[in-house]
Every structure is written in C-alpha cells, then in structure tokens.
C-alpha cells in the first residue's frame, strides 16, 4: 500500500516538478520584461488549432503571422523593442480557447492576438480578451456574431458572411445566369453562415434553390448528396465549407458527370483544393476578400518568402494570418509612437489597432469601422480555368 501511495505521489509530483520547473524558471526570468539584449519584450500571440482535425488551417495562420512578425523584427528593434511570437493551440475547442485566453490575459507582455480559426472559439474567447483589453485581429472568422457584439477588442480583416454570401449570389445570378441552384453546406458555423446568406440572397434575386443539404466534416464519401444533385439537375452548385470537403465533392460530382459550375467562399481558396480535385477543379468559382496574390508585387513576394521559409505552398489563410499580424503590428507601432516611444498600455494598443486606416497588406486593404469590421471588405471572384493554383481573377464585387 505504501509503495503504491508513494508511487502515485511520486508520479504526480515528479510530473508537476519535472515538467514545470523549466516553465517556472523561464517565466521567472522573463518577469523583468527585458530580454538578454536589453530590449523590452513585446509578445504577440496567435491562437489557432495546431493539433487535431483542422490543424492545417490553423497552422497556415500561425505561419503567416510568424513570417510577418519576423520581417518586422528589425523595425521594432530600432524602436527599442524585441518582438516575440507566442503560438497557442486552441484545438478548435471553445474550452481550451477560453483557458488559453486567460493565460494570454495574464501574460502582460502579450499586446495583441491573431486568431482564431473557428468562430465558435473566437466568440467566447474574445469575451476574455475584452476584459483584458487585448486587441484581437481575426483572419478568418466570418460569422456575424463575432463583431456584432460590439466588443472594442475584436476586429477582423475578412468579410462577414452577410457580405460574402450576397456577393456570391450576385455573381451567380448575374454573370453566370444561374436559375436553379443547389446549395451544400458543411454544418459548421462557417459553412452554415455562408450558405444561409447565399441562399437567402440568391432567392431574392429570383433564382430557385432546388436543394439545400448538409454534409459531415471529415468524411470522404459524398455520393449521397451528389446523387441528389444528379436528379435535381441544377445549373449551379454552391458549397459553403472548406476545401478539404469541397475538393472531394467537386471531384466526385465531376466523376458522375455533373459539369455545371461550382461556387464557394474563401474557404475553398487553397492550393490543396486543386491538389484534391485535380482536373475537376475547372469551372469552379470562388469569392474571396483577398486581392489577387499573383497580381500584386506584395502578394508575389509574400508567396515566395513563405515558400522559402517554410517549404510549403501558401494557403488562403496564411496570407490572412500575415495581414492580420500586419494590422496588429501597425497598431502597436502607432501606439508606441504616440506614447513617445514608451511601452504603451494594452488599452492604447487596442485603440490604435481599431483606428488603423488604409492599411495595405499583401493582399487585403484594411480600415476598421466602429464594430471592427473591415471597411474595405470588397469581394473578388476567381475562376479556375486550369488545374492550377492560384485561380484567375474574374470580377470584383463592391461591398453593399
């Protein structure tokens, strides 16, 4: 009995000690707020899923943000600050997100957050950020509730569902002349929000929605729903969801001989979509808030640097992560300058981020309105003519 007791004690004890001795020491060292080089440390956190099912997207955001941060390190060094990236893993789980948010809040060196991937995590976590007055810039949360709660700390550079859906609908009914539309969504907050907004607006514009179906994320066989498309014979299929499912739906539909145009939101904007769907990706349209990566110098440069640094192709979200970090750092820089080069408070950074105007990122332009939505969130439509990424620029739809 004693041995068992001591063993259990030993296990818990040694676990706690062994693992955390390092952390304890480390954090004790950094409480002084000065790094070894004598510069004041400012940390920017990212919080996205880095493990679990949607890790690929979460990591894209993190890497994009990391690239931006490292590019600006020198600039901040001249101001007397050392920038550090602190990545957190929210695992796509609201509980974990909130717990991490509390840890972030308690680390006084963290001045801003890039994240989250999922609106379901962003909404409860941002309540915590608001309490600590840490500015969050979201690269990908399109759900309306994210900014509709009027929190001072919450901003996003991507578009809202209720802009993106109508933008797609306008193009679908106008340029593509769709009359019968089949809508599929992936039953996540992102997919539902986008597909609902699209459906509503496409009906207002006079087209009929012949089918509205949901699929399960993580599955690979979507033939059931595709059989419905087959029998309904629509002239456009809209998919609200991400590229991993979207690519398979497009591929499997084309295999069954459905050659009508497919359309989707920025969730489909990824090189992996082309990889999954192959030739089937032709005649697929995506709406995106991002300007043409290939078209602009900054976009091209970003893609090259990213590839060189991480040995990976860019995902749509990596460039949003890059630009989100850009906005955070712009706000931080403004706050430092207006504070006479002294360390600004979190509140000052928060106000500075909100008042960022006409920021020109690699692909996005950013000016926040009083809710934290991006004033410049106009939508671009891209079309895949060949099985290659990025797709060709097709049209521009201004925000209504």
């Amino acid at each position: 009995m004693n041995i068992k007791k001591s063993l259990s004690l030993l296990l818990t004890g040694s676990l706690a000690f062994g693992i955390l001795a390092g952390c304890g020491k480390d954090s004790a060292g950094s409480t002084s707020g000065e790094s070894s080089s004598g510069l004041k440390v400012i940390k920017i956190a990212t919080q996205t899923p880095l493990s679990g099912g949607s890790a690929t997207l979460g990591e894209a955001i993190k890497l994009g943000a990391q690239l931006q941060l490292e590019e600006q390190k020198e600039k901040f060094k001249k101001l007397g600050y050392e920038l550090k990236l602190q990545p957190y893993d929210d695992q796509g789980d609201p509980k974990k997100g909130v717990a991490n948010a509390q840890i972030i809040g308690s680390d006084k060196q963290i001045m801003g957050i890039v994240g989250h991937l999922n609106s379901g995590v962003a909404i409860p976590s941002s309540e915590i950020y608001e309490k600590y007055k840490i500015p969050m810039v979201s690269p990908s949360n399109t759900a309306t509730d994210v900014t509709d709660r009027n929190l001072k700390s919450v901003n996003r550079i991507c578009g809202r569902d209720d802009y993106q859906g109508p933008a797609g609908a306008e193009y679908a009914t106008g340029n593509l002349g769709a009359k019968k539309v089949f809508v599929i969504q992936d039953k996540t907050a992102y997919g539902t929000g986008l597909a609902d907004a699209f459906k509503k607006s496409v009906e207002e514009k006079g087209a009929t929605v012949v089918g509205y179906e949901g699929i399960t994320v993580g599955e690979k066989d979507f033939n059931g729903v595709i059989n419905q498309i087959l029998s309904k014979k629509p002239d456009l299929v809209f998919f609200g969801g991400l590229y991993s499912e979207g690519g398979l739906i497009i591929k499997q539909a084309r295999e069954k001989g459905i050659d009508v145009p497919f359309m989707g939101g920025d969730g489909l904007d990824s090189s992996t979509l082309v990889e999954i769907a192959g030739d089937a990706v032709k005649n697929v349209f995506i709406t995106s808030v991002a300007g043409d990566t290939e078209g602009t110098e900054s976009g091209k440069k970003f893609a090259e640097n990213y590839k060189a640094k991480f040995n990976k192709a860019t995902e749509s979200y990596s460039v949003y992560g890059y630009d989100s970090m850009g906005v955070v750092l712009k706000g931080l820089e403004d706050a430092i300058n207006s504070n006479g080069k002294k360390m600004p408070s979190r509140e000052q950074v928060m106000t500075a981020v909100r008042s960022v105007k006409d920021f020109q990122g690699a692909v996005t332009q950013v000016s926040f309105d009083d809710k934290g939505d991006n004033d410049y969130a106009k939508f671009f439509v891209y079309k895949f003519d060949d099985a290659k990424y990025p797709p060709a620029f097709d049209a521009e739809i201004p925000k209504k």
Partner: protein
Amino acid sequence: MKKLWNAYSENKLFQGVFLLIFIAVTSLSLYLAQKSVTAFLLLLSSLLLLYFTKFSNLVKWLIAGVILVVLLPAAAGGGDAFESYMEVATLVGIYISMALGLNIVVGMAGLLDLGFVAFFAVGAYTYGIFATGQASNFMPFGTYPLSGESFWLFIVLGCLAAALFGILLGIPVLRVKGDYLAIVTLGFGEIIRIIFNNLDKPVNITNGAMGIASITPPKIFGIELIYSSQFYYVVLIILVFTIFTVRRFEHSKIGRSWKAVRENEIAAQSMGVPLVRTKLIAFAVGASFSGMMGVIFAGKQTFVDPTSFTLLESITILVMVILGGMGSVPGVILGAAVMTILNLQVLAEMTNWLNELSSSGAITIPDALSPSKMQRLIFGALLIVFALYRPKGLIPAKNPVYKEEELVSSKVLDMKQDQKVQA
C-alpha cells in the same frame, strides 16, 4: 528511508506538521512567484497529500475547505495570473463533477456509457436557449432572454432535464448489455449532438451550428458573475454537494444495488434487486450532475455550440473515470483533475516553453515538428504511461471489508458507522 516513511505514515503529528509546512511553502511561493504554474499545482496537490493522512474525515474536509475557499484564491490572487488559475480550477471542478456522474454509471453500476457528454449538452442548452432571445422563436408565452437571476433556478432545471434524458436513454438499456450498450449510448450521444447541430430548422431552437451567443451572465444580489473567480465559488459549492451526494449514494441501499448489478446481474436480481429501477436511477443520477454543470458552463462561457459536445469529449470523461480508478470517488476526482490540468495548463505551458527554447535558438526544430503542435501527441503518450504503470487506476476503489465475527446481529447496526471509517 523506509523507516522514516513508516514513522511518517504512522504518526498523525508528523503528517500534520509536514502538511502544514508543505501548504505554507507552496502557497507562499505561489503568492510570490505569480507565474509559477508549478507552485499552483503543488498547492493543489497538497489536497492529495491531505487525503493520504490519517486524520478523521471531518478534519480532512475542514482543511480542504480552508485550502480551496481561502488559501488558493488568496495565494493566486496576488497578480495577473489570478483569473487564469481560477479558470483552470473552475473547469477542473466542472469536469470532476461530470466524471463523478459518469462514475456512478460506469464505475458503480457497470454500464459502459460512451455518450455521456450529451447530458452536459442538455444542461448547457437548457440555460442557453432561455437566457437568450432564442426561446422566443418557439415559446408562445414569456419574454426572453430571462434575467440573470433565473440562472439559479436553471441549475435545478438543467439537472432535471438531464435526468429526464438519462431515463430516456436508460429505456433501451434495459435490454442491451456490455459493449452493445456502449454503442447504443454512443449512438445516442451522436444523435443528440447532430440534432442540436441541426435544430435551426424547421423551428430555430438551438441556432444550429452557429451556436447561441451572448447568453445572459448569471446574477446574484445584483452582481453579474462574469469572472472565472466568481464561477469558481459556484462550482465549488455544487461540487461539494455532488461529492456529498455521491458518497451518500455509494453507501446507501441503491449504491449497494448498483454494485450488485455490476458484479452479477442475475445474482442481484435473484436477491431482490429491481434491475430496471436500479439501472434507470444510475443513469438519471449520473446525468443530473452533468446537467447542472452544463448550465454553469453555459453561464460561464456565455456561448454554446455543438462543437463542445463531441464524442471525443465523452471519451475524455470516460478516460478520467478509468484513469482515476473506476468506482473510486477520490480516484475519479484525482483522475479528472489530472486530465484537465494536464490538457489545459501543463501542456500549454510546456509547449510554450519548448517553443521559447527553439525560437531563442537553444534547440532547433523544423517547423513541421514545432512543439506548439504536439499537445495531443504528448497527451497520448502520457495516457499510455499512466495506464501502464497504474493499471488499476490512480487510486483504486476499495470495498469495505467486514470481519465475520463482527457481523453478529448486535453489531449490524454499527455497520454503517464502520463502513464510513473504512472508506
């Protein structure tokens, strides 16, 4: 060494002194070194140390109460990390309560349940729907959202709603056994989640995948509860209630019936244990704890959506029970605490630390292997190690042993007393 250990384990005074020193040192170090998660964990582990002392139950409860109510918040409250510690402590409380509920079903009654998180969801949604405008979509009367004061009523309502679902689930259980039962409950859990995920049409009840946002925070005496440190006390009260109830159940007639059913259904039945009722009560009681905590969870997060209630969550709670030791109340508490703290705090801190090392150049790791992505990997590895080295659970269940000669008629009345002491 051995001798010293023996002296320690025999002598109450030694234990008391050691415990006191331990608590004093850890709380002081937590107070001084605010960011030291180690100190926080060591302070918590003093409860474990306390459990292994030879004091009477009352003394143990009192000391634990002082530590949790006064010492922990006070020691952690000196700096910025306060809310972060309280958040973890609150979630630990929520999970302990759920694990205790599942422990009744799995550990005591021996019914393997893989859909337990559904009851948590029922509780969370019960409050979520009525504390937002959501309810006005289908309720013909009343104005919604309800005020924050109704939260306290909803704790009871959530408890009842979950118990009702527990009974509903229990009905098919009457025929299905063993692993078939596991898959039925798994199916049930998935069905509940999918329904919650889709109930935005035809009538919008749960707002589907978008989740319910801006839930009214609870209110008491005009104070809105929005900080984790406030919820900590709410959770603590309910947790004490839960532990007390579970303890009472364990040693009551129904508790004995559960164990009898677990050991041998037919024998139990032949001894006059009503199978149907016993199993249904197990499900209802287990579910109700989970429902209560669901309500608190909804109030704390102010947001519920179906992603919080996946199968993985059910499995995690089950792992807490098994890891702690099935049927053993202290074990399950320890299991739930270890799992939650590990996942929410230790892993995050650890990967941060590794990340710091790699970014400062002490060690170089390619990005594909960046430590911040390794949480689940480490979690998995630790689970294996735990299970291999403590195959019966961290604190295995003990059944009270009765001496034959004491079981003569005159002593039967004292049995209850004996049992309490031994347990």
